[in-house]
C-alpha cells in the first residue's frame, strides 16, 4: 500500500463511520429517512445545498473545463450564485406547502398541487431518468480519482464497486442524515484542498496569479474570456439562465429544501451560499495553471488536468489527501442521489401500485431499492462510453422542464391545469431528447437567424415549446370544462321537469 492509498482509504472509512453515526438517537421512520424530520438548522441545510455544488463534476469537470476551454467555464460560478438569489423567493413557499401537506419528495409536490397521482408518476420518471446519469458521473469520477491518485495500485473498476457499496450501506442505514453528516467531512477537506491548490499552483509555477494569466494570454490570446463565436457571450448568458432555472429542479436538491427547520434557515443560506460559491474560483485557478504545465490533454482527458498536475508536483501523501477529498466529492452527492431516487421509486411509483402500503412498508421498499439503483449506475459506469457529460447536460435539460409547471402552481389560484402541466413537461422532455440525440443546434434549426441567436443554448427552445404547450393545453381544458358546465346547465331543467 503506497502513501497515497492510505489517505484515500482513510476518507472511505471516515465516510462510512460518519454515515453510520448519523443515525444515532433517531427513530428511522420514513420522514426521518427522507427529509430528516424537517429538523435541520442553517448549517446542515447549508451543507446539503452546497453539497450539490461540490461534486466530482465541479472538482474534475470545473478544472478540466477551465483547462480545456477557458473563459466559458465561468458560467459555473454565475449560475449557482443566481440560483441562490432565486432560492430566497422560490423555496419558502415550497417548504411551507410541503410541511403543511407532509410531503417527502418532489413528485409529492406536483401530485398535491395538481391533485393528480398520474402527474406524480410522470415527474418521478423524469427525475429518475435524470438522476441515473448524474450518479454514473459521480462513480466514474470516483474511479478516475482512485486510479490516478493511488498511482494505479487500484484500478477504477474495483474502486467503483467499493465506493458504491460504501454509499449504499450508509444510505440504507441513515438516509438523508448520512448524506448531511458526511457532507461535513467532505466540505472541510475539499475546501482545504481546493484553496491550497488554487493558490499554490499559480505561485509555484508562475510566481503569481497575474503572471499566470499573462503567460496564458501570451500563448493563447483571449482564452481566459469568452470567445467571439461558439461559446460566446450569448451562449454564456442563455446557459446561465437555463441552469439557474434547473438548479432546484433536481429531485435531490428539491428534497433538501424539505429538511429545513423553518423558512428563515432557507433565506439565511441565500446570503452565505454565494460567497461559498467562490471556492470554485480556486478550482479554476488550478485548471488554468495546468494549461502550460501538463499540456496536450484532449477530449475527456481534460478532466484529469488537476490530478495530473498534482501527481507531477507533490509527494504521494499529499496526492493521497487530495484524492481523499476527491473521493468524498463523489460519495456524498452519490448518497444524496441514491436517497432521492429510492424515495421517488418507493413513495411515488410503488405506493401508486400498492395503495394499502403504509409509511413503514414504503420505507422498507425504499431501502431495498437503494442497492438496485446503485447497481444500475455501476452497470452504466463500467459499460463506459464518453457520453457521460452529454448525458448529464441532457439530465439538466430534463429537470429544467419541470420549472414552468412548478412555478406557475405556486399562486393560490393558478390557471394551469393538470393536463397543461403534464403536456408541457412531456413536450419539453421530448424536445430535449430529440435535440440531444440528433445534435441539433438553433443554427441547424433556423439557418437564417443572425449568428448571435444561433449561439443561444438550445435548451431555450425546449423550454419555449414546454411553455407554449402548457398554455395551450391549460386553456383548452379550461374551455372544455366551461363548455361541459354550460351543457349540464342547459340540459338540467328538462330533467327536473320530468
Amino acid at each position, binding site marked *: 500500500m503506497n502513501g497515497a492509498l492510505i489517505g484515500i482509504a482513510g476518507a472511505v472509512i471516515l465516510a462510512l463511520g460518519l454515515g453510520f453515526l448519523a443515525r444515532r438517537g433517531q427513530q428511522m421512520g420514513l420522514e426521518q429517512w427522507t427529509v430528516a424530520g424537517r429538523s435541520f438548522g442553517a448549517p446542515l441545510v447549508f451543507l446539503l445545498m452546497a453539497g450539490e455544488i461540490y461534486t466530482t463534476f465541479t472538482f474534475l469537470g470545473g478544472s478540466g473545463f477551465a483547462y480545456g476551454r477557458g473563459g466559458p467555464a465561468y458560467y459555473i460560478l454565475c449560475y449557482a450564485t443566481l440560483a441562490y438569489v432565486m432560492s430566497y423567493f422560490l423555496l419558502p413557499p415550497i417548504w411551507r406547502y410541503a410541511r403543511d401537506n407532509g410531503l417527502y419528495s418532489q413528485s409529492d409536490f406536483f401530485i398535491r398541487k395538481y391533485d393528480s397521482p398520474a402527474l406524480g408518476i410522470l415527474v418521478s420518471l423524469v427525475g429518475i431518468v435524470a438522476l441515473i446519469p448524474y450518479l454514473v458521473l459521480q462513480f466514474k469520477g470516483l474511479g478516475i480519482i482512485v486510479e490516478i491518485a493511488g498511482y494505479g495500485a487500484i484500478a477504477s473498476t474495483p474502486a467503483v464497486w467499493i465506493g458504491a457499496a460504501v454509499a449504499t450501506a450508509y444510505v440504507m442505514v441513515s438516509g438523508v442524515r448520512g448524506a448531511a453528516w458526511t457532507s461535513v467531512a467532505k466540505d472541510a477537506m475539499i475546501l482545504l484542498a481546493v484553496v491550497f491548490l488554487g493558490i499554490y499552483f499559480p505561485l509555484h509555477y508562475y510566481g503569481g496569479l497575474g503572471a499566470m494569466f499573462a503567460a496564458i*494570454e501570451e500563448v493563447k490570446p483571449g482564452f*481566459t474570456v469568452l470567445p467571439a463565436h461558439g461559446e460566446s457571450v450569448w451562449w454564456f448568458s442563455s446557459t446561465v439562465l437555463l441552469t439557474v432555472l434547473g438548479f432546484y429542479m433536481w429531485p435531490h436538491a428539491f428534497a433538501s429544501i424539505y429538511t429545513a427547520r423553518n423558512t428563515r434557515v432557507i433565506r439565511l443560506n441565500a446570503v452565505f451560499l454565494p460567497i461559498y460559491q467562490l471556492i470554485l474560483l480556486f478550482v479554476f485557478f488550478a485548471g488554468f495553471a495546468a494549461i502550460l504545465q501538463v499540456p496536450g490533454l484532449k477530449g475527456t482527458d481534460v478532466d484529469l488536468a488537476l490530478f495530473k498536475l498534482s501527481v507531477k508536483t507533490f509527494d504521494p501523501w499529499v496526492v493521497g489527501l487530495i484524492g481523499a477529498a476527491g473521493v468524498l466529492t463523489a460519495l456524498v452527492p452519490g448518497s444524496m442521489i441514491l436517497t432521492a431516487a429510492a424515495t421517488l421509486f418507493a413513495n411515488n411509483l410503488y405506493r401508486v401500485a400498492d395503495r394499502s402500503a403504509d409509511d413503514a412498508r414504503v420505507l422498507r421498499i425504499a431501502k431495498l431499492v437503494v442497492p438496485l439503483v446503485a447497481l444500475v449506475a455501476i452497470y452504466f459506469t463500467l459499460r463506459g462510453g464518453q457520453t457521460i457529460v452529454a448525458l448529464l447536460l441532457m439530465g439538466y435539460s430534463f429537470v429544467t422542464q419541470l420549472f414552468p409547471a412548478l412555478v406557475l402552481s405556486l399562486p393560490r389560484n393558478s390557471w394551469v391545469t393538470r393536463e397543461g402541466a403534464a403536456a408541457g413537461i412531456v413536450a419539453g422532455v421530448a424536445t430535449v431528447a430529440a435535440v440531444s440525440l440528433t445534435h441539433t443546434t438553433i443554427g441547424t434549426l433556423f439557418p437564417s437567424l443572425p449568428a448571435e441567436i444561433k449561439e443561444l443554448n438550445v435548451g431555450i427552445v425546449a423550454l419555449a415549446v414546454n411553455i407554449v404547450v402548457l398554455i395551450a393545453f391549460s386553456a383548452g381544458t379550461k374551455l372544455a370544462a366551461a363548455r361541459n358546465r354550460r351543457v349540464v346547465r342547459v340540459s338540467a331543467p328538462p330533467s327536473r321537469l320530468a
Partner: protein
Amino acid sequence: MRSVRALALLPFLALLVGPFFVNRVTPYVFGMPFLLAWLVAWILLTAAIMAVIFRLDPANRDESE
C-alpha cells in the same frame, strides 16, 4: 420594507447582461482577467445585497415560519 426585495434583480443584470459589456482580458484586476474580476466582484456584491434584503425583509422576523 418588502420593496427592498427588488434589489435582488441587480445580480441578474450584472451576471446575465453585464458580460456583454465587460468581456475583455485587460485591465487585470488582482491578477485576474477583467471579465473574471467583474464576475467575482458581483458574487461578493450579491452576498452583500442578500444580506441587506435578509436584514430588512419583515418575513424573517417570524421564527416559527
